[in-house]
Structure formats: structure tokens, C-alpha cells
């Protein structure tokens, strides 16, 4: 009886305490840095450079959000997460934003209680094999040994692909992408499968990239995007519209070089805070998008400098071109 009473009282205090939780935006502002979850290291997407500064395509999203909210693209604490730890880190509040090649799926969005704020890279799962294996299509891989990064959607896609093609394989589950690459290069597996962007990125770091080929098969849709926790819609809006600002800026021709130039286009002026009060609607000041763009430029600039065809990663825009150029990037209007 006593115990029940006490439990009740305890539950009541805990509930009262939880009601007082601050919004993520206030927390980030009070802390002064954005805690952003990234990979443990995928070249081009998120990797510390020689000076220990995080660089990459996903990192740029973190920096843009930090610049929009805090006014400083360097006010980010990067938290490396593995495929297994990322969701726990986000759900527990250890990180405010997860920008880590994470595929937007139904169950992650709903059951895991996350909110994907958009897609920053349209990807698909592919296969890499050594050239001298003499394989030209994934359907010829009956009986092959396949290295997979465990805890990702690739595991499920792989099982589905081989089952629907009625061929067998031997899975070798591996914790991180770099270990998987080591195993693959040591010949402990014949095939390495993950998102094609990551395959291209890893291959660029090989001693002899030409000895390996990406098979043409794409076995899944992998829309990769940043995500936040369910329930804090204001914070979700900030992340979503920061990403949209990067995309819209490219569409409108706004680059990091011409941010201060006069423009006759009203949408450019709304985006950059010269007209209207879009910033106030998401709890920020008028120049939030301008600051976000000043860090690494618009989507196209970020793409080109981290993973584009001029970089060792050498990815073509493909699906990730603007909708006007036949790609899938299509931001809702800023109005």
C-alpha cells in the first residue's frame, strides 16, 4: 500500500519534470553548439580531414543548420555514430540532428518516432566486385560471399534481392564500413554491398580503384536524409527548411559568392531575408538562410566540393540534379 502510494507520487513528479522539457531550439541556443550525429567516417560524406576538422556532404548539412540557428557554422559538436548507435543517440537526445546517410523508411519515420526532414542524397544499393571475378550482373552472384554493414537497410534489401532472384549467398556481417572494406580487400568476401555513393567513395580510397567495378544493378531506393526526433515540430521545421534553402538557392542561382548582390527576384529576396519575415515564422532572425548558405554555399556547391565529379569520389549528379535538369531535387517554394 505504502509502496503503491510512493510509486504514484514518484510517477507524478517525474511526469511534472518531463513537462518542463525545453524545446530543442532553446536547448541548442542555450548550449551554444549543435550536437550533430555523423558517420564514423565515409570519405566525401563525413570524415575528419588532416587537421581533424570534419568535412563532407552530410557534415555540410550540420554546419548549415548550426549557422542558421547559432550564426556560426563551426558551432557543431560532431558525434560519430555507427549504424547501430545512431537511432539510440538521436532518441535519447544525445544529438539534436542526425545527418548520417540514413535511409528514409516507413518504420523509421513512424515506429521509431523520427522525423525525416527531407532527402539530401537519392541513392540506391549497389554491389562492388573485383574486376577479375568476371561478373557483370548481380544475378550472376549465386553462391558468392557478401560483406554487409550490419544494422542498415542494406541487410534487408540484400536478403530480398537474393530471395526474389532465387539465388543463394553467404552474408558476412560487419560492424563498420571501413572494416567491411578491409575484409573485402583481403578477399574474405567476393562482394561488398552498400549504397552506391558509399561504394564509389570507398573505391576512390583504394590503391587500385580500377581493379574493382560497381555492378549496374541497383537493388533498392535509398533516399538518404537528415532526421530529428518526433514531437518537436519547430525544430523539425528549422532543419527541413535549412535543407530546402540550400536546394532552392541552387535552383535560383544563389551561391556563396553572390549572397550580397542585389536581386530582382522576389523569392531570392525572401530567401535571403530582404523581403518578408520568413525567419520569424520558424523562430529565427531574417538572415538565417543567408548564414546557412554562407558556410558551404548552395546544394550544388556542397555537392561539387565534397563528392562531385571533380573530387576523388567522382559522383555524377544523376538523380540528385535539380528537377529542371531532370533530377529529383524539388524544394517547396519559399513564400
Amino acid at each position, binding site marked *: 500500500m505504502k509502496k503503491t502510494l510512493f510509486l504514484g507520487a514518484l510517477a507524478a513528479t517525474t511526469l511534472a519534470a518531463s513537462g518542463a522539457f525545453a524545446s530543442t531550439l532553446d536547448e541548442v541556443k542555450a548550449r551554444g553548439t549543435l550536437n550533430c550525429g555523423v558517420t564514423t567516417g565515409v570519405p566525401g560524406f563525413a570524415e575528419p580531414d588532416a587537421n581533424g576538422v570534419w568535412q563532407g556532404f552530410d557534415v555540410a548539412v550540420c554546419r548549415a543548420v548550426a549557422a542558421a540557428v547559432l550564426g556560426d557554422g563551426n558551432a557543431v559538436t560532431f558525434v560519430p555514430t555507427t549504424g547501430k548507435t545512431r537511432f539510440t543517440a538521436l532518441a535519447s537526445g544525445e544529438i539534436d540532428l542526425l545527418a548520417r546517410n540514413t535511409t528514409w523508411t516507413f518504420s523509421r519515420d513512424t515506429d521509431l518516432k523520427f522525423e525525416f526532414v527531407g532527402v539530401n542524397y537519392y541513392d540506391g544499393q549497389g554491389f562492388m566486385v573485383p574486376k577479375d571475378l568476371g561478373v557483370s550482373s548481380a544475378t550472376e552472384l549465386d553462391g558468392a560471399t557478401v560483406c554487409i554493414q550490419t544494422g542498415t537497410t542494406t541487410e534487408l534489401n540484400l*536478403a530480398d534481392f537474393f530471395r526474389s532472384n532465387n539465388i543463394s549467398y553467404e552474408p558476412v556481417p560487419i560492424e563498420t564500413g571501413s572494416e567491411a572494406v578491409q575484409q573485402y580487400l583481403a578477399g574474405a568476401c567476393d562482394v561488398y554491398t552498400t549504397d552506391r555513393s558509399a561504394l564509389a567513395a570507398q573505391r576512390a580510397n583504394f590503391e587500385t580503384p580500377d581493379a574493382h567495378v560497381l555492378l549496374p544493378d541497383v537493388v533498392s531506393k535509398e533516399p538518404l536524409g537528415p532526421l530529428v526526433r518526433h514531437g518537436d515540430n519547430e525544430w523539425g521545421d528549422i532543419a527541413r527548411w535549412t535543407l530546402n534553402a540550400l536546394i532552392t538557392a541552387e535552383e535560383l542561382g544563389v551561391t556563396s559568392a553572390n549572397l550580397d548582390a542585389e536581386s530582382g527576384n522576389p523569392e531570392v529576396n525572401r530567401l535571403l531575408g530582404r523581403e518578408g519575415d520568413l525567419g520569424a515564422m520558424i523562430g529565427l532572425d531574417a538572415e538565417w538562410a543567408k548564414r546557412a548558405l554562407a558556410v558551404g554555399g548552395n546544394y550544388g556547391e556542397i555537392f561539387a566540393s565534397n563528392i562531385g565529379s571533380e573530387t576523388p569520389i567522382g559522383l555524377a549528379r544523376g538523380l540528385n540534379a535539380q528537377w529542371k535538369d531532370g533530377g529529383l531535387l524539388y524544394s517547396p517554394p519559399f513564400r
Partner: protein
Amino acid sequence: MTTLSDPPKSDFRIGMLLSDTRYRSYTFQFIALMAIILSVSYLVSNLLANLDRLGQDLSYEFLGAPAGYDINQQPIPYNSQDTHLRATVVGAMNTLIVAFLACVTATIFGVIAGVLRLSNNWIISKLMSVYVEIFRNIPVLIWLIIIFTITANVFAPIAEFRIPRDGSDPARTLIFGVMAFTNQGVFVPRLTFDAGGMFVFWTFIASIIGIFVYKSYVKKHLFATGKELPFWLPALAILVVPTLVMYLVLGRPVGVQLPEMGRFRFEGGLQLRTSFIALWFALSIYTGAFIAENVRAGILAISKGQTEAAAALGIRPGRIMSLVVLPQALRVIIPPLISQYLNITKNSSLAIAVGYMDLTGTLGGITLNQTGRAIECVLLLMLFYLTISLLISLFMNWYNNSVKLKER
């Protein structure tokens, strides 16, 4: 008879809870108990309140949903359409397999190293000291990764066993035509059982039991009459003859399937994967070093007089060890051995470091990840390891009771 005197009834006063030594300990125990209950219930209610705030609940319904992923080492048939529960069972069996094998080999390593460390031969005893000190002073995870890396790089790449596309002979072939050591694991022949094959198998098991029965009969006969019956030849006969007869009578239902090179890897046969070998070997050799010290302590605990008395009776040194010293030493060895077995079982959860799909890899890894049910999965994991550990303790305690000194 009547009771002569009742103890004087003291009047209980509330102050005696603290002042009277008879009650004081109860008071403190009660306070401690309440404190524990309070703190645990605070943590639980905190958890439930936080889950509620996140809009999540505790539910095990996901165990019935299709798992969707594949597992390479399958003690029972499994495919990606089976449920998470079945994937969990497969993982649990993989844990048990590697834990059991590692317990057996660790004991063998430990007993050999422990006995040899006491050897009079300087080189041998020093070698064993080196083994013990090196292996028990480096974390098992490091050993696991070292052994895994070595096996993956020392054994020939499986590509060298493949038939080249121009049809020429492969660079390497099966050793003795039956087995291959590759960087994807060791491929060995396996037995296949046709209809009736199980009878042959059970006959073989019965024969092994028969040997133990015969052994106890020989012993009884020796004690009763003083005459020693021959043991080894009859034992061999018991082992081989019934199985062979059964095999021939049933029309050779047991076959041997050799590994055969397919397009990419060996098909058929049994594959001992690199991850499995690394985990098994790392756990055995690491824990073996601890067991060696237990064994050495147990042997040193036996008074030297026992050895000398046995030697005075003319018993050979080898038999002194196996008949006089070790049986007594077991009483000292077994209690710490229990905790070593528990360590092996729990350390097997490092399997994911080399990609061995044990319970932590399936339930605590992929299932947890794909369903996001972290708390539920971890609770199940705890329950499993706790149950297994308690069962091992129970069994070993029973064994310990059976070998301990019977005082009459």
C-alpha cells in the same frame, strides 16, 4: 512433561528498535531493503514515464514479425522470411555452440598448461609461464581481432581454389582431397544421413555409453576379485562393431560429403567460418590461461606427502598425477572453474567484433536495429545470459558436490 519455565516476556517498546541489539539489525536491514525498493522503483517509473513521453511502449510483438535478414551459420534451418523469434533462437544456438566448444578446449588447454607449468623441465615450465602471462594479460577482444586478422590473411585466398575461367587447373586444391584452409574459413567433409542414418548415429552414441558401462564393470571386477580385465581392446570392439554392423545391415545410410568448388566457393561439406574459428580459439586460449593457474593452484594445494607416498608404492609419475593428485586437486579447481565457464559464455558476446552471428549479433544487433525495440531486446538478452549462467553454475555445483571430500 510440562514446560518448566517460559523465557521472561519482555515488553516491546518502539525505542528498542534502535537501542536493543536484538532488534537493531532488523531495523537496519528493513531500512536498507526499503532504500533498495525505492531506488529500483524510481528507476522503473522513470523509465516508464520517459517511454510514455516519447510515445513508446514495451511490447514483444515484433518477435512474431518476419526478420528479413539472413544469418550465415544456421544450426537449424532459417531463411529471411522466418520470424525474429526464430532468428533469436538461431543466434542463441550459435552462442551455445561456441561457448560449449570453447569451454571444452579451454579446459584442455588449461589442464595441460597448468600441469606442465609445474614440470621439472625448465624450458617447458617457462614456456607455459610465458603462455599464461601473455594470454591472460591482454584483453580477449584484442586476441579475438588478432586471431581473426591472422586467419583471414594467413590462409590462402579462396580465389586461388577457384577454377580459372580459361579452364586451367586452380592454383590450389583440397589438402588430401578432403579439406581446404581458406581465408573464408576451413572447409571439411561432413556426414550425410539418409533414411536409417539416424539409427547408425544412435547406435554409435549407445556404444560410447556402453564403453563407460564396461569401464565401471572392469573397475568393480578389479575391486571384487583383484584381477584386472583387459580394457582397451574390448572398448574398441564396443565402439566399432555395433555401429559397423548397423551401417552394413541398413545398407550404408551414412555418407561423406566432400567440399566441392562451385562458382565462388566450396559447396557442400562443412564450413567452419573464420569468424567462428577466431572466436572459438580466442576464447579457449584466453580462458585456458586462467584455468591453467587454477589447475596449478589446485595441484600445489595437495600435500607433497601424497606424491611421495604414491611414489613409495611404486606408482609411475603419470599415474600419480591422474590417480592421486588430480582427483584431489579437482576439489580446489572446480569452484573457480565455474566462473571461468561463465566468463567464456559471457565473453562470447564479443562475437560481433568478427561478425559471428551469436545472440548479441542477431537479437541484440540486427533485430534491435531493424525494429528499434532496444529495451525489449536488451531485457531478453539479459534474461538469456542470466539463465545460461545460472544453469552452468547449477550443473558445476552439482559436479563439485559429487567430487568433493565425502566426510562420514
